[in-house]
């Protein structure tokens, strides 16, 4: 079993089981192998998210209807679709951020490595430690320095070990490809960085708590092409250790960074397949129309 959702321990100084830790060892520590290996398109990968009949509502309005899909480990899954198609809503149910919206609720099940994310007694804060998130607009905390921003998740969750903190600081910034740019002024405010650097700082902050999965909600939509290229490169690196689910408006980006792509339209999952298939040879005419730019 992977780290239980009820378990209170928070990635303590040692290496938690099944966690892509300092050594960037693969997530596949022995014993992390829950059910759901039979996905046709990803035969060698364990299923990280196993989603069945998921419908998501705001009040009485369904935002997402009857979605069933499986997200494989150590890969990038892109979610594309026109505005308002429910892709962000879908993403947010994966780390229980959705339920923060008033009137939000859902039906169906989401299993994270075999465990029901929404089972009774599951603490959403523990879910969010395992499933990190990067937002559309970079949002480093304005009262904190670069270093404090990166270490915020650890420190505020009670990690005191100075050596561990220093290690994590450097590792996380290196993983976010930001270390070389900021190593000489770690104690400047996080908001003193450029937009692209701020976004990578937010990625470093999400990485520092060693999540198993990283959700990205249009992480590049506020960035210029150079900064975008850097973040995309980073996504490419990160997928060696992490499972990444990325929502994007930019179809070229989905084509560039993802292994699998899900196309959402009007709250329905229209098609979900290998990215190449979605873009070169989609099964559904709607998908074809969207990816070829005929609507949306």
């Amino acid at each position: 079993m992977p780290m239980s959702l009820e378990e209170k321990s928070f990635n303590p100084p040692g290496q938690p089981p099944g966690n892509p830790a300092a050594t960037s060892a693969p997530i596949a520590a022995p014993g992390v192998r829950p059910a759901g290996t039979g996905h046709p398109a990803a035969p060698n990968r364990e299923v990280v998210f196993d989603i069945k009949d998921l419908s998501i509502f705001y009040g009485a309005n369904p935002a997402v209807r009857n979605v069933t899909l499986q997200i494989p480990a150590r890969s990038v899954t892109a979610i594309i679709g026109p505005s308002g198609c429910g892709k962000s809503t879908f993403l947010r149910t994966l780390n229980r951020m959705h339920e923060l919206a008033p009137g939000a609720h859902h039906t169906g099940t989401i299993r994270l490595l075999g465990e029901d994310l929404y089972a009774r007694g599951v603490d959403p804060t523990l879910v969010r430690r395992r499933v990190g998130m990067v937002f559309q607009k970079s949002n480093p905390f304005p009262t904190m320095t670069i270093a404090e921003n990166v270490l915020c998740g650890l420190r505020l969750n009670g990690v005191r070990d100075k050596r561990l903190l220093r290690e994590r600081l450097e590792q996380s910034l290196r993983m976010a490809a930001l270390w070389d740019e900021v190593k000489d002024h770690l104690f400047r405010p996080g908001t003193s960085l450029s937009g692209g650097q701020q976004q990578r700082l937010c990625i470093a902050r999400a990485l520092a708590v060693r999540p198993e999965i990283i959700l990205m909600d249009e992480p590049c939509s506020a960035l210029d092409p150079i900064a975008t290229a850097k973040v995309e490169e980073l996504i490419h690196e990160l997928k060696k250790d992490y499972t990444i689910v990325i929502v994007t408006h930019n179809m070229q980006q989905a084509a560039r960074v993802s292994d699998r792509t899900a196309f959402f339209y009007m709250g329905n999952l229209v098609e979900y397949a290998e990215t190449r298939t979605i873009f070169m040879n989609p099964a559904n005419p709607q998908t074809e129309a969207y990816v070829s730019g005929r609507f949306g």
Partner: protein
Amino acid sequence: MEINANHRRRKFTDKAMNALSVGCALLVISPLAVILFYLLKQGLAALNWDFFTKLPGPVGQPGGGMGNAIVGTLELMLLASVLGVPVGVLGGVYLAEYGRDRLNDWIRFWADVLNGVPSIVWGMVAYAVAVVPFKTFSAYSGGLALGFIMVPLVLRTTEEVLVLVPRSYREAGLALGLPRWKMIVRIILPTAMKGLVTGVLLAMGRVAGETAPLLFTAFGNRFWSHHLTEPIAALPLQIFAYAISPYDDWHRQAWAGALVLITLVFLLSAGVRFISSRQKS
């Protein structure tokens, strides 16, 4: 030609409106300037070192000061803050971070009603709660009355300041797996700290000048009070007592007291300006 004439008329209207608004602005400021000028003229004469350190003198004997009233006012402000700041800030946090819509509307409505309650009514409440049961006027009861006035003020400003903190910081904090209370205490409150302090200082300035709620709570005292359970002097009370007295010397001292009080409030406002100007840079 037609256009030209039109243009000239518009220019005239523009100038006229401009002059009108400048005139109104001056009209608003001028009473303040007159008051300040008059206070300085009347108050400075009686202002000396003794005024800040000595007790009021006996009737007919010149000299003496308001040292006890100045200290008393500061003590009362502190006491009021002990009640007003935590209750107001926590209530504001509830409104901004936790509250549900319907209940929030009610709390907001009642806070606004309470903000409009005449201050003497708060004095009566504090009298009933803290004077009658203990059978003595006291600093505590005065602080309680002023604290009552502070609570809704601080509550509303706290809420407004917290609502201005972008939601994205809350989401970022929660996405790191922080419990909500920790996210609020360690991320949201520090981000809003300058606004919170500003709100508290403004509320303190507001209660510093309150007289009515102290009439039958703090009551006033011509001597140093050694315990918070005793009646305590306060600048507004002392000013009131001296201003209605028949003695010229006391009148002069009342002017000086008013000058000190307004300076205190001015310093609080200046502190607010200083803090909020640093926020921008």
